[in-house]
């Protein structure tokens, strides 16, 4: 139900964009107003969320340690999995953000006859997640050619490397295939695994369908439905230079693409897509395990009711005396 509902919603949104591109009178709305509004919501929303996180203090130093601590000089500490220095933390975070280190640990637990529990390899989720995120990043970078004039050499080089295999005309982008394939896997996994289906919310499918819709419209525009890329670039340049030009006949699919992108941007701050910023702030990962080495201050530490030694001695004075234990007050 969640899956079907979000699919329908994404189709509806894509159709809305499509229609907006067809009607000349609506193009200023779908080509300029909506993208700007989405961008503003994205910026303000994401900043707001990040500020909310940043304003909440980290009262305790609670890293999850995944290796040997630094203790005795002759025991080799695990510098990345249990960092005790800033450099180690940077390394741990780099592995986490760039390579999804923790997800790489993933296993599949199986209960076999015996009973015997087995822990099998389950790297596909890691592969798909990593493939999707990197491909998405590269696709975004590749899109810079629409927003920059002249196109920087790096961006041009990226495009040519991406179409290295020279399959078809125009050259097939490897990232397109990877992006669509990875998204497809992530979606199928949610639909086919009973556990994943049980826990998936509307928003989980919605994000996937939105990205799939974005990818599909993009791929179609490159390989099937030709559009006026000069007009697209005019629009893109106009948007970034704050002197928007309302485009003419760009091709209706383009407006679906742009509208889905706008929805994605505006949806970001209200959704789990915020994980992209949140991962950097996770206190179980971004703190050094120096809990006993350096004092960590809790800004809201407040005094509490403690049963003091004096109260304790008063309560047990006779018994302490009888047992011959030393007393503060006789």
């Amino acid at each position, binding site marked *: 139900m969640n899956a079907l509902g979000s699919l329908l919603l994404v189709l509806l949104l894509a159709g809305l964009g499509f229609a907006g591109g067809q009607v000349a009178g609506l193009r200023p709305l779908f080509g300029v107003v909506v993208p700007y509004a989405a961008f503003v919501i994205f910026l303000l929303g994401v900043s707001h969320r990040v500020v909310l996180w940043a304003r909440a203090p980290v009262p305790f130093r609670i890293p999850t340690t995944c290796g040997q601590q630094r203790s005795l000089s002759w025991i080799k500490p695990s510098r990345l999995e249990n960092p005790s220095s800033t450099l180690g933390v940077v390394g741990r975070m780099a592995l986490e953000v760039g390579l999804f280190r923790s*997800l790489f640990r993933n296993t599949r637990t199986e209960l076999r006859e015996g009973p015997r529990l087995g822990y099998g390899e389950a790297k596909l989720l890691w592969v798909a997640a990593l493939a999707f995120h990197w491909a998405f990043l590269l696709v975004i970078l590749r899109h810079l050619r629409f927003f920059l004039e002249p196109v920087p050499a790096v961006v041009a080089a990226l495009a040519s490397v991406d179409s290295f295999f020279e399959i078809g005309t125009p050259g097939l982008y490897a990232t397109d295939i990877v992006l669509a394939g990875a998204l497809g896997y992530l979606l199928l996994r949610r639909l086919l695994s009973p556990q994943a289906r049980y826990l998936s919310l509307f928003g989980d499918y919605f994000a996937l369908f939105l990205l799939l819709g974005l990818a599909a419209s993009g791929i179609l525009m490159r390989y099937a439905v030709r559009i006026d890329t000069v007009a697209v670039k005019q629009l893109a340049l106009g948007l970034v230079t704050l002197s928007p030009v309302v485009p003419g006949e760009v091709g209706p699919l383009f407006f679906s693409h742009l509208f889905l992108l706008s929805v994605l941007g505006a949806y970001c701050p209200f959704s789990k897509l915020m994980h992209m910023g949140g991962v950097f702030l996770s206190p179980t990962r971004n703190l050094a395990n120096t809990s*006993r080495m350096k004092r960590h201050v809790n800004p809201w530490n407040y005094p509490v009711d403690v049963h003091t030694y004096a109260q304790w001695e008063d309560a047990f004075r006779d018994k302490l005396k009888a047992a011959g234990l030393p007393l503060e007050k006789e």
Partner: protein
Amino acid sequence: MAEEVAKPEDLAQVDYRPPAKDWRDPAVEFRKGVFCYSAAPKHLQYLGLPNPRPWHPSDADWKLPADWKRIILEGMKERLDRFRSFRLFMDICVRCGACADKCHFYIGSGDPKNMPVMRAELMRSVYRRYFTPAGRILGPLAGGRELTEDVIKEWFYYFYQCTECRRCSVFCPFGIDTAEVTMMGRELLNLVGCNINWILEPVANCQRTGNHLGIQPHAFKDAIDFLVDELAEITGVRVEAPINRKGAEILYVIPSAETFGTPHYYTLLGTLLLFHAIGLDYTLSAYASEGGNFGLFTSHEMMKRLNAKIYAEARRLGVKWILGGECGHMWRVVHQYMDTMNGPADFLEEPVSPVTGTRFPHARSTKMVHICEFTADLIHNGRLRLDPRRNDHWVATFHDSCNPARSMGLIEEPRFILRSVCRRFHEMPENTIKERTFCCGSGAGLGTDENFEMRMRGGFPRANAVKHVRDRFGVNLVACVCAIDKATLPPLLEYWVPGMHVAGVHELLGNALVVEGENERSTDLRGEPTGAAGASAGPQPEGARE
């Protein structure tokens, strides 16, 4: 009780297929054997906790305060503003499900709400409904859920079905730590008086007497005296075990179970023998007679209240630094909370081993050293005479306790000691040790008898790995450094892997330790024949010490 419990072969038939019912339906069934009983009102009254009343989880009416909903929501707001972890973990989960089959309770029960992601969603759904714009407007469509009394019951059921072991957080790509969510959940439940007796009775005891077991100072002294006599009988060596002695160099803090519980008790025997052998200038305290801290399972405030005694006592006694015994969650508190909560310990000195001169700069601020760190240093510097043959009746493996492994990184120190004192040592499979270790299934205050079935389910992955090394290497002893393990692994293993034994690392050290003036030892610290001679006879299973 045993006759009421399902047979292991039946319990091992776990059905992992989730029910067709939407998870947002909060209804839970409080079935005998899978939940903990409510706390007696007298403990709440003594501790000054809200809403003391007689009630039972299987009652229809939980007698919540009239404005319970406001209390919970305000409590959430306060905690969202105080803990970045909480706010962040409410926001960033993508529900990838990588954590799902990493939880011992999910593996053992198949209940989909025991998947860590779902356990957190029980809270997140309420967070989204009341604290996010999308949830307030769109409700269920944005994953929001109304807070009802049934949700409180569901929280109680599942937040007291999590041992805060942090295994899921090792696998989470964002480091989302269910322990944090469970801790917040329990804090909130405590605000409306929904707590369990197996946690609050020890907490009240600890507040009043200084330890969870409620041992009063004279009884504490008796227990230590008895222990000294027994040690003299076994080894021929009479050790000093001072209590509340001012001017000692080191305060030694133990989990109180070591004074009475079995097999914990043998660990203390071994430790006190060690202190005698190296002539350590130390004292125990009857006031700070508990290193463990069931406050951790109640609220941050309660944790701080109980923990405060350790520094206060170190200051009063004028010691230089503090040494801590074998206890799992105690080390979570000492390592990650104590200095922040009750420090700075500027009245203490940076710990230095008086025997080897080794400094412990990693404990520079907190000034508290783990007994395994201390002992590993002694062995490394050749300061102990060890005869590992005295442990030849044991084929040992090591169970990493959740907190020292995942909240500290105490991995190699106990292993180094074990390898030095025990000639036959085998690791369990990689996926079940070190940072990936499996909980005993009874941590975080859930080790009570009425919760027996759920404990056996939760401990199943651990027990199954023990079975693996028993079958493969003939392992007959699980060594560990946690008092809850020592209390709850014996019944767990008796259930799944009968015939196994459980011991503290310092019990095995005590067996192997050659002390000046000792008798020729014919038995180990349990009074069982040592070495190869004892192997055939085999020690008796653990039971209550007479």
